[in-house]
């Protein structure tokens, strides 16, 4: 695919349209965004690696757009990242610059440029690695357990996925998306990409849905859409979303884990009554962002489904032998094909010039089935991981992190509820503190329980099935 009108290269054409609004006080037009973005990029001046400390504020978007417009490769990290995890990432990737609002994050004194709250710091690393020609962007896969593993996304990946999403969601220039997710999270980033691509408006806020300021801003700026992970919908339910008066709202999206069927039905009914739409979607960072969506016209009769492949994509199911399953209602591993399938992972800077390892085919690790009408349903996972409030948490990784702290443990649980079984009751506080302080998993997302010993089979394999999860 030839990349014409690559994202952000031509956003200047939207001129005086407002691109960004921040907390009702700052309005940034497309023209101004393009100028500020290029000014930041000029101070970098060459294709290199930049750590971008993401917040839902104007300068963070300026840095991101500046990088993507100018062939600079950003590593998207949360501004609230744990210092130790940041240290690991720095050691592994040796970025040339860091764009951040926090001086303490930069580990260097060399400020070379400033745009309001954000500064560009030059690091002292010697660049002993190459960036692949097509590499555009690097994203973490979980954000939670802090693995230095990054997903390598190309310009073609981002362009293909953005155009597809714009098409199936029918995103319009009059849309105003309000942020509910961080921009270093692929779902949050896709909302930013798609809206900037069509000249629409993004309302930036760091307030949560449980904060009055969020809803005041929502009404004042007349938001038309927002996205949410399953837990966002728990919050909306608690807030009695169906009783809220939100006349500007056009549609809401859901991704980042499976919304249980009952919740999907409940929200379908609310949206039907209020004249909104609920679009259920499915995706992974490895597929840039989105792979499927459930069209609103099918929402009621196909509740619980992840829908159909996005425009330009194709799903198939394979059995244990890798053969394609043709019959309906048979469970197999979900495989996706499309131009948004990323090149693969990087574990360190030495991997940044690796070629395309996926070749457009992604084995999702999710087990799914297809009904007679061609709609897909995710029924479980091949690998041991949970989604905690939208973030992927690898259970084996958490176990290993705790073991490194000298805590004997096994991890299990269900989505939004990780359970850590420890064998030494005296280590409970240590385990809680470690998970809270070093992994970013919210305190409410996990529980620590005591068991006398870890159940194992005769061959020594951990018997996860014998652990009581309620």
């Amino acid at each position, binding site marked *: 695919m030839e990349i014409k009108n690559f994202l952000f290269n031509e956003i200047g054409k939207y001129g005086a349209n407002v691109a960004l609004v921040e907390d009702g006080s700052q309005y940034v037009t497309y023209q101004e965004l393009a100028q500020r973005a290029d000014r930041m990029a000029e101070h970098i001046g060459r294709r290199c690696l930049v750590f971008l400390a993401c917040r839902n504020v104007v300068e963070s978007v300026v840095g991101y757009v500046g990088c993507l417009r100018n062939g600079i490769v950003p590593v998207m990290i949360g501004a609230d990242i744990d210092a130790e995890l940041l240290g690991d990432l720095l050691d592994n990737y040796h970025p040339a610059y860091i764009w951040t609002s926090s001086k303490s994050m930069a580990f260097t004194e060399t400020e070379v440029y400033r745009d309001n709250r954000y500064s560009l710091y030059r690091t002292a690393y010697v660049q002993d690695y190459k960036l692949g020609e097509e590499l555009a962007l690097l994203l973490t896969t979980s954000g939670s357990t802090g693995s230095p593993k990054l997903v390598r996304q190309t310009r073609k990946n981002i362009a293909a996925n953005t155009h597809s999403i714009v098409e199936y969601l029918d995103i319009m220039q009059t849309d105003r998306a309000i942020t509910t997710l961080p921009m270093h999270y692929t779902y949050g980033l896709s909302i930013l990409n798609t809206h900037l691509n069509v000249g629409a408006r993004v309302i930036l806020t760091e307030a949560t849905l449980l904060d009055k300021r969020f809803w005041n801003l929502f009404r004042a700026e007349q938001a038309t859409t927002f996205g949410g992970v399953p837990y966002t919908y728990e919050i909306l339910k608690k807030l009695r979303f169906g009783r*809220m008066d939100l006349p500007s709202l056009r549609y809401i999206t859901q991704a980042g884990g499976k919304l249980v069927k009952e919740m999907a039905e409940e929200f379908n009914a609310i949206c039907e009554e209020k004249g909104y739409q609920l679009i259920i979607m499915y995706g992974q960072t490895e597929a840039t962002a989105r792979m499927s969506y459930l069209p609103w016209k099918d929402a009621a009769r196909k509740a619980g489904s992840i829908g159909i492949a996005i425009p330009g994509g194709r799903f198939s199911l394979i059995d244990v032998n890798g053969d394609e399953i043709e019959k309906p209602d048979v469970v197999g591993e979900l495989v996706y094909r499309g131009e948004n399938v990323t090149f693969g992972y990087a574990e360190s800077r030495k991997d940044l010039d690796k070629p395309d390892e996926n070749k457009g085919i992604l084995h999702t690790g999710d087990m799914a089935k297809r009904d007679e009408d061609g709609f897909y349903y995710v029924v479980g996972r091949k690998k041991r991981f949970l989604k905690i409030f939208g973030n992927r948490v690898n259970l084996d990784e958490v176990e290993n992190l705790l073991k490194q702290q000298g805590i004997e443990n096994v991890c299990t649980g269900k989505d939004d509820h990780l359970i850590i079984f420890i064998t030494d009751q005296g280590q409970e506080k240590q385990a809680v503190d470690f998970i809270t302080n070093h992994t970013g998993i919210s*305190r409410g997302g996990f529980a620590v329980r005591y068991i006398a010993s870890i159940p194992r089979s005769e061959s020594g394999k951990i018997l996860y099935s014998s652990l009581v999860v309620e």
Partner: protein
Amino acid sequence: MTNREKYNEAFKSVLGVEEGTLESLEYMGIAEWDSVGHMQLIAALEDTFDIMFETDDIIEFNSYAAGIDILKKYEVTL
């Protein structure tokens, strides 16, 4: 237990905080009182006092002190 003790207990058990820090607690002020912590705190208080918060009260409940005022509306005096 007095109502104030019950109120304090909800914060301590949900957020894992010490008695001495209660007065200064604010939503998003500590890692434990994030969205998830807030949802759990609201649920714990609803159970404790057998009430059901209105939407506006859930989103205005942004500190330990603010919660005391909000509970008055539900005829819970702390």
